[in-house]
């Protein structure tokens, strides 16, 4: 009888650690250089996604804009927010690159072509990146200590079910979308 109790105790302990403790240990939270507010840029600055994240004529994707393109408008602080003060004083003035923690950063060997998806397939940014484009502040960034990737690639929960757009960017997510649309690209399509 005592053996059974010991067994159940061990079972409960490791399940608790596995489902609650392990995720805490696996991800470490890293601060963004500043709290960037997408919403205010879209509304007050009357901009849309492609004004900063634009696909150039030769198909190269600009990705996260560099400090110089922020400096174009923010040579001096336009508003009173704390984030903008940091931007101007410690990044635009000394021309230092902002070290953004990119939520959807894929490993080096993955080639995601924004030109094909945005220009050719006319997909919306929200389909993959979720509501990040209209957020008022940068959501917290969690990095997987083992793989070094952002938590947004695997997804917030251990079991990858019910993932809203922007929460999961693993290979199977891309594949399921490709399967639905019947456009399978094979290994060469997405890897380099």
């Amino acid at each position, binding site marked *: 009888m005592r053996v059974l109790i010991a067994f159940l105790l061990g079972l409960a302990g490791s399940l608790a650690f596995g489902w609650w403790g392990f995720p805490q240990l696996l991800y470490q939270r890293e601060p963004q250089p500043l709290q960037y507010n997408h919403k205010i840029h879209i509304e007050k600055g009357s901009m849309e996604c492609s004004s900063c994240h634009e696909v150039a004529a030769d198909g190269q994707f600009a990705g996260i804009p560099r400090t110089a393109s922020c400096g174009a408008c923010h040579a001096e602080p336009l508003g009173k927010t704390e984030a903008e003060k940091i931007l101007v004083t410690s990044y635009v003035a000394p021309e230092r690159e902002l070290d953004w923690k990119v939520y959807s950063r894929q490993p080096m060997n993955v080639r995601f072509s924004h030109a*094909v998806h945005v220009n050719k397939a006319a997909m919306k940014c929200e389909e993959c990146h979720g509501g990040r484009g209209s957020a008022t502040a940068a959501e917290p960034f969690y990095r997987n200590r083992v793989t070094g990737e952002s938590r947004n690639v695997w997804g917030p929960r251990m079991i990858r079910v019910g993932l809203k757009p922007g929460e999961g960017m693993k290979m199977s997510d891309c594949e399921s979308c490709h399967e639905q649309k019947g456009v399978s690209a094979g290994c060469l399509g997405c890897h380099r």
Partner: protein
Amino acid sequence: MSATQKTSRTPRRYGMVIDLDRCTGCGACVIACAAENNVAPGAARENDRNSISLLRVFTLNNPTAAGRRTAFLPMMCMQCEHETPCVTVCPQQAVELDVLSGIVEQMPQRCLGCRYCMTACPYHARSFNWGDPSWPAGMEATLNPAVAPRMRGVVEKCDFCQSRLHAAQDAAAVNGSLDPGIYTPACVEACPTQAITFGDWNDPEGALAKSGETFAWLEGLGTQPKVRYRSGQNWLHEMAERGGAAPAKEERHG
């Protein structure tokens, strides 16, 4: 080859025709290939058998009396079409003959490093990272951003500069088409005598179709290589017919 790759555009079968009369064996293609594909400069221990050389130029000595004494033969992965030896043997599908481009694609991130594909390839077109590739301090700045450097323990091969294929596809996608068309791999761009012609075997009026009578090496094995050769000297044709090398006979010196 994953049969369910539904093709969103007319598939291409990229290939090459290399003119052995034009090749002067200068090696520009070898260094351009290494620079484009982020191959690390060889450490002191690397020799001609364990170095990462996706493209190698062999020196062929003319055993007969007629014709020039030597010919130089650039040889990379032949992107075999039929029963591709490496694709059929890879235990975890790390190698795949891409339906849309005919390129045999090697996935370093899925490769276990079991090296079975290297024994299967009759053209020795595959190299293995025996140690961690390392660059001298600071030289990481000269890495090509479009190519992912490989890690130790994985096999590498020529994939017709897929970085340039992707760049061509991105450029085409901006104005509405998914077809990368005929792009220029690094060795084709570097060859001073334009000995290497890159094209699409599916294209009837393409450069490959108009390259006249070509031959391939080890055609008897039935793997249908897509890199073919052309030469006016028939001692090269005869050598290509024969399979394994005969024992080293007395070489012609006169």
